[in-house]
């Protein structure tokens, strides 16, 4: 039986893990909700953010600069992808959209491997992120605590964008009823472009934040991609609060399962996903009707 200390430390860890997932999944979710495209290249975009951090922090000490440039790189990538590829697919069946992003994801990963090699690139912790904090029951890396804060701030910004701006209103309406929004005169294609770009940027910024924490290798985005699918299914396709709650939930499931039997952690989230799909297919917060 795990002790209280163990339980609390894992529970806290789950929030840290989950918040990052929430950020990545938010991007994926609004893309899926608005464009109806399940972006299989999302993991690769996350990875591009990490590599941007690696390049920037190799020349400068400023983590802020890394964040900024990461967002910029992904903005360009997102725009290029949507304008150059995805937009030819809107009138095509949904399966084709999934597949083209799948192919794109492969291309991005292999291109990065070619350019940077397969070695794990070291990305240092920012100077303000080094060290340990004592959280009462347990010791925890300072940077991870800060990550929770940073991600919370970014999610707040995301929230404000979606719920307090005109663009956000259009996006949310578009998630609910794209036909209606088009009939109301909004330039839907432009909205698609904006949403895809924002979604890609969310993944990229998450990548920058995550880079000091783990091995930066070309394949690093893969496990996150599948975990994100689980998050948005549990939280609700197209729902921003769903992605946040779903992310934390998945992070908790992963962390707490390791208290009992780590081998089953991955299986546990798939089981949870299947359960949701059977009992409440629209997820915790999802809107009905987007099948």
């Amino acid at each position: 039986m795990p002790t209280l200390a163990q339980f609390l430390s894992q529970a806290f860890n789950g929030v840290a893990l989950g918040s990052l997932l929430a950020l990545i999944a938010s991007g994926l979710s609004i893309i899926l909700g608005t464009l109806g495209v399940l972006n299989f290249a999302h993991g690769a975009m996350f990875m591009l953010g990490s590599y941007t951090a690696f390049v920037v922090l190799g020349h400068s000490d400023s983590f802020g600069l890394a964040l900024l440039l990461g967002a910029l790189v992904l903005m360009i990538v997102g725009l290029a992808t949507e304008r150059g590829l995805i937009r030819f697919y809107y009138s095509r069946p949904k399966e084709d959209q999934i597949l083209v992003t799948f192919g794109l994801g492969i291309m991005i990963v292999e291109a990065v491997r070619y350019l940077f090699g397969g070695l794990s690139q070291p990305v240092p912790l920012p100077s303000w992120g080094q060290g340990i904090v004592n959280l009462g029951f347990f010791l925890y890396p300072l940077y991870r605590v800060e990550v929770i804060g940073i991600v919370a701030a970014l999610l707040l910004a995301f929230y404000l964008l979606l719920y307090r701006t005109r663009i956000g209103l259009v996006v949310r309406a578009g998630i609910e009823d794209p036909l209606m929004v088009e009939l109301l005169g909004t330039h839907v294609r432009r909205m698609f472009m904006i949403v895809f770009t924002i979604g890609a940027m969310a993944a990229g910024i998450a990548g920058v934040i995550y880079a000091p924490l783990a091995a930066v290798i070309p394949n690093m985005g893969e496990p996150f991609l599948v975990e994100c699918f689980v998050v948005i299914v549990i939280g609700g396709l197209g729902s921003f609060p769903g992605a946040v709650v779903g992310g934390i939930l998945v992070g908790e499931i992963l962390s707490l399962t390791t208290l009992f039997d780590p081998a089953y952690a991955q299986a546990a989230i798939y089981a949870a996903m299947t359960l949701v799909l059977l009992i409440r297919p629209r997820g915790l917060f999802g809107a009905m009707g987007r099948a």
Partner: protein
Amino acid sequence: MAGRNGRLLARWMPELAMTAALVLLPFAFGAWLGSVDLFTRILIWGIFGLGFALLFGRSGLLSFGQAAFYGTGGFVTAYLLTSGTLSSVWLALLAGIAAAAAFSLLVGFLALRRVGIYFTMITLAFGELSYFLENSPLSRFTGGENGLPGVPAPSLQLGSFVYSFSGSWPSYQLVAGFFFVGFLFARFVVLSPVGAVLTGIRQNAERTAALGHDVGAYKLAVFAIAAIFSGCAGGLLGIFQSYMPPDAFALDTSGQLVIQTVMGGAGTLIGPTVGAAIWLILRDLLQQLPAIGSLWEFVLGAVFVLLITFMPSGIVATIMRAASPFWPRRSQASVATVSSADSATRQALLAPLRLPVAPGGAPARYALEAQDVSKAYGGIHAVEGVSLALPQGTLHAIIGPNGAGKSTFLRLLKREESIDSGKILLHGVDITTADVTAAYQYGLSKSYQINQLFPLLTVRQNLRLGALARQRGRLRLDVFRAADGFPKVEALVEALSEELGLAECADVVVNTLAYGEKRRLELGLALASQPSVLLLDEPLAGLSPAERDDIKKLIRSLRKGRTILLVEHDMDAVFELAERITVLHEGSKLAEGTPKEISGDPQVREAYLGGMAP
């Protein structure tokens, strides 16, 4: 190419071509490509892909988890052989296939409760779950991340002559043999009524269900069929390389299957095989080019993206389209046992089938009866306490302003939605809890306000789908029958298309028809089941005056032996056709009576007819 021989050749041409290809291609290209092993691998992916072509290409079910069944078939076969449980490789292969099929029934039961992206994601989750099961809890049996080496090859014993299928050429023969049988079977499925229903499911699943086919059961059936192909491919892989790899279960495997199928073309049976050939040949080739080497996956990814962008239906379909001017056209005439006969014969053919009799033996008083039916959506009471009783043979109309609940009421009658309270009786039989497919079998049919057709099929194929379920019931896995092999159905389809004035365009694809023709076909689909009770939801919508006359004449001719419930906005038509009229307003019945009574009713005039004297 006319005549019976021509048709026979046309039917079996693909199989003949396949035989020739399987025998000749390895000889033709083997020397250039190195060894026949590559062909064997391509064919293993080809078998895997045959099932996927049926699942995705035919039925529209995109599964990202087929590796689960590929791996199950492979590991069950490999385990039974390497553990010594079975010594016959054939039996072990059979067991592996059976295991894959059984597993697919479980997964399908859960996954098929959802559609679209949800379905895809559940299959992905199950694929990953299987991978995990193989790696951890079941690693005692599966060897975990090491896989199972030492899988023996089968041998054929005829008397004292023993032929062992190990070595390059014998392996190829083994796999090619299985591929051919699989191809044969898949062709049967495609040309059978089952194939027709699956195509219908892909193009319009709701209508297919309304036409009496148990969509859920058919989907599960094709899911299991795909798993059988997958399991067979997995088993053969282990036998061929004498080693069953754990990555058979990986997401990569499911992904590679999807990529190959889409590149080659999901709509054809050999598309996946062609896609596999491209992927495998290019992979080996590119790795050896010094300029490319480890960039091979990038190049292949780019090739894939280019292919699906510019050749969405896949390479095979694109080539076939380009070559089609050179192909002999297949004769489209079906076996019509009734020539363009006179109207009386047609009417006889189209007559409603025998009415179901109520328990007790006596014919029911009313053909269709609704007792106090209600349905609410959240706070909106769409239909509130509506009662209706239609005697046999009557033509009854429902009118009312928009939002009155007319369409909803019809949907409830046709059992497309559940009823909150009340009862519905069809010829005295309580069908309140029946589903839409059962309603069809009871002889209740509906024509839709917005055309619900199968746009990529011909008129004939549309009507055939409508008529098949009467002959075959909700579910029949008659894969060895031809879809056009029911003489009664073909005669009915022929008669229907003439009755509807669509005989000339019987073999035209529906999405090229004019609106009027489509509307008539819509009516035809409702008639194909030879219903005794017919619900018509605004049949005249969007038609020109001349077309309206045609339809009105048709409706009148349909009255014989049938009960018709008509919802319409065209008041002239309503007053012309209907014996009795019910007026709905805001979900409840406002008035009911003869046309004369209704037109004189002040309440009705107020609510609907504009408050002016007729």
